[in-house]
């Protein structure tokens, strides 16, 4: 009998299994701006994480998030020096090949605005942008992102001027404890881009239509990958809606 730590599977199902066979895959997967294939691929890489030195971890190279980890020159088991570009700044870090992007941001780079709520792709607290798309930083390894542009909550209001989404969150009281808020805001920003690009969701009536409206059902659906236990959902919807209108207007979109 092995110890029931989370990391052995001793007494626990593997994270990947639980995530991808989630009892509500419709709503848990929704809002993650990866294709389902990419999502599964990312989860598989997580599953393959221990033991150290197993190889198969991605090296550098240009690729969309969550893919191409198969092509690899092996890294590890020793920690390696990698460079990550976060919020436009390059950070040289010593990364364990097993280190998630989330833990690397938080524990190595010191960007603690991105939160860990579950470490297994279920809560959205760790949402960041990679090359302009939202991903769950707990579900991907840092070494897979050496060629990517990573944006965290710390990077969206660099000059101290709040982004309209941030301001709307305050105005609508769209948080209480604030722990999920970084992830909510990063999701909200990505959501507005997804709508602008006309990408449909499970809440879209006509998925073949060229444009998608920023409706409340769309917002609810696309924000459902971000859990808020303080339960500020109606306020979050109101904030995203207001910010969406504010962001859309100056560009004359729609």
């Amino acid at each position, binding site marked *: 009998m092995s110890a029931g730590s989370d*990391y052995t599977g001793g007494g626990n199902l593997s994270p990947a299994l*639980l995530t991808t066979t989630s009892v509500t895959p419709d709503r848990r997967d929704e809002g993650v701006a990866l294709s389902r294939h990419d999502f599964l691929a990312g989860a598989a890489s997580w599953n393959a994480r221990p033991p150290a030195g197993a190889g198969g971890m991605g090296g550098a190279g240009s690729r969309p998030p969550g893919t191409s980890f198969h092509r690899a020159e092996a890294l590890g088991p020793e920690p390696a020096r990698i460079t990550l570009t976060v919020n436009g700044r390059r950070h040289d870090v010593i990364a364990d090949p097993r280190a998630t992007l989330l833990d690397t941001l938080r524990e190595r780079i010191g960007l603690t605005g991105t939160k860990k709520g*579950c470490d297994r792709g279920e809560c959205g607290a760790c949402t960041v942008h990679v090359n302009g798309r939202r991903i769950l930083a707990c579900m991907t390894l840092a070494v897979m992102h050496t060629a990517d542009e990573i944006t965290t909550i710390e990077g969206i209001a660099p000059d101290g001027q709040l982004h309209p989404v941030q301001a709307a969150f305050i105005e609508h009281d769209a948080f209480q404890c604030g722990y999920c808020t970084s992830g909510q805001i990063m999701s909200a920003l990505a959501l507005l881009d997804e709508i602008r690009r006309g990408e449909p969701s499970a809440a879209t009536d006509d998925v073949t239509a060229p444009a998608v409206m920023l409706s409340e059902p769309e917002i609810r659906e696309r924000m459902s990958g971000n859990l808020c236990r303080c339960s500020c959902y109606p306020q979050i919807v109101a904030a995203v809606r207001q910010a969406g209108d504010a962001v859309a207007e100056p560009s004359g979109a729609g």
Partner: protein
Amino acid sequence: MRIGSELSRKDGRLKVTGSATYTADTQVPGLHYAVFATSAVASATIEALDTSGAERAPGVVYVMTHHNAPRLRPPAPGFGSMTFLPLQSDQIRYEGQPIALIVADSLERAMHAASLVRPSYAVRPAQMSMLERFGPDADAAVFDTLETVTQGYDEPDTRTGDPDAALGSAPVSLSRRYTMGFRHHNPMEPSATIASWDGDRLTLYDTTQHVWGVRSVVAEALGLAADDVRVVSLFLGGGFGCKGFVWPHEILTALAAREARRPVKLVLTRSQMYAACGYQSATVHDVALGASRDGRLVAVAHDVVYANAVPEAFPEYAAAGTRTVYACPAIATRHRVVKLNTIQPTAMRAPNEGMGNFALESAMDELAYELGMDPLELRLRNYAERDPTTGKPYSSKKLREAYHLGAERFGWSRRAPHPRAVRDGNDLVGYGMATALMTTYRFPSAARVRMRADGSVVVESGTQEIGTGVRTIMPQIAADRLGIDPQHVEIVLGDTTLPEAGGTFGSSSTMGVGSAVADAATKLRLAILRTAIADKASPLYEARLEDLEVHPDGAVTPRGSPTRRDAYAAVVARSGREAIEAEGSWAPGGDVLGTGDYAMYTFGAVFVDVRVEADFGITRVARCVGAYSAGRIINPKTARSQMTGGMIWGIGQALLEQSETDAELGRFVSKNLAGYLVPANADVGALEAYFVDEVDPHASPLGAKGIGELGATGVAAAIANAVYHATGVRVRDLPIRPELLLG
């Protein structure tokens, strides 16, 4: 922008920019990482524990097990911590119990090393069955064989009148069993502790709802003076009760940091949270009601069975609300426990009434249908003007107004009298309502308020910001008493170097901390004005104190003489001191319920509109309206968020949340956010919360009461009642699953 104004959260900017510092965000030089290896069995003796792999793993600096861990003084039996501590013996009492603690130089290395720990156990049968023993057919006599928890703050059993006789002779009566599953708090922030020693002095950065509780329990366990332990908690990512008690991991992290001679950070995994910081027990409720034909209650009986961990004693007064909610000459309540192999259960939003309310309010709904009476009318007919169990008057109660306000905003008069009468497309539409109710808990608190020479004000109190808005409403209260705009006021909190405050639980902070802040700010105002009129350099020299008036920008003038002007800041500056400060405090007197001559509760009326999809039995709450009688509201904006948040908790309780157990293995099996469903954004419809105008002069000098838990009561029953109205199916077991509504 003072008391009663809709001030936006003062910590809003920190929270939307990711710069609020939660425990695990704390930067400490030389930090090492602690990870638990935990038991996969629930009841056992550890026969062997092979840690050689972990010890040899790269980066590992320390491995603590029951073989080498220094002996701790276990916390005394009582409320707020566990008497049983892991890593102190070879005994396993619950699945998920730590069997080893690894400290390494990186998180990844600590995690890997923890996976290499190899235990072997002599396993005993575990006790994990609870609801199974109390199915609909269970023998009522089982109840009488169970234990009572008498250590607590209230009576486990009460009896007024003769409910048995009254039930026997009542023209209308019913007797029903209701159950609810195990639930876990699941705050988005997992529990975390960072321990840092400086010689014999310990600093703990900790996710706690009560820094003072952690200080005393950890100091006691480690044999330290309380003054040698400092506990810091600047922002909490929610708690909902699971960070209220002091749990073994907090003590063990402090111990590990001492033994490893390094600062150590431990963050529980989401999965570990299910066996590390309590849970809400499953409960079984037997409710019997007797009434006259015109709907007057003549008897109410409510028996509750809940769980406790094998060696512990935690009181859950799930029938407490039943003692007071309706006028009735004969009321009996009883509580009994079943002992399980789990971590100790604990309070969870909402404890006590939050559970029993579902049973009683469901039974009231059943009685209304039995009588052919509108459910709201039945409540009004049994409106309690005095507490029926103690005979005391209520400190304040405007529930009648709340019923009417809620009914009107909801449109209750449109309700069809019979179930299964309304359809909307493929949805069965139902309306349901219930009374919300919560006991008032108050704790002594102290605060200090300082005015600096630049006119800025700092409130200092060792309370916690858990998301309820303490960082916003305490400055509001201080500003109100000082007579200035709250933009000039900040709060420093979450540190045992500050004045001592009560825990952030029991919906108590506004009353306890708020009253202490009001007291300190009132004294500070007086101190500054007195300084001014005694100061020859002040334009206000020798003015009469009663004549002075403070303006929102901090200017002070005699009433009617706007040109004879001084200012708070100028008074402080001339005093030569860095700041003028005052201390304040408040205590309710008596015990924790310390309500003296009054019965003290908050109340509400909850109305819901549900849609049950006819083919699949999926229930959605389209709309929920709550009207609350909860004393003076300090900040309606943050208060509404608490109430609607509570409603969503009620939706989770009614429709989604249950920690599944495996009685054979003795464990919770759905230990993650995919297996344990909390409401997500798309699960929630339109929510409206209203407050009736009310001031409770007895609950606190502010006239305010607590609201955090009230919002999570009433909702589950209203939903179950609406589901009955929609479908004609009465569900007495939460959560309401689609399959129960089919066929």
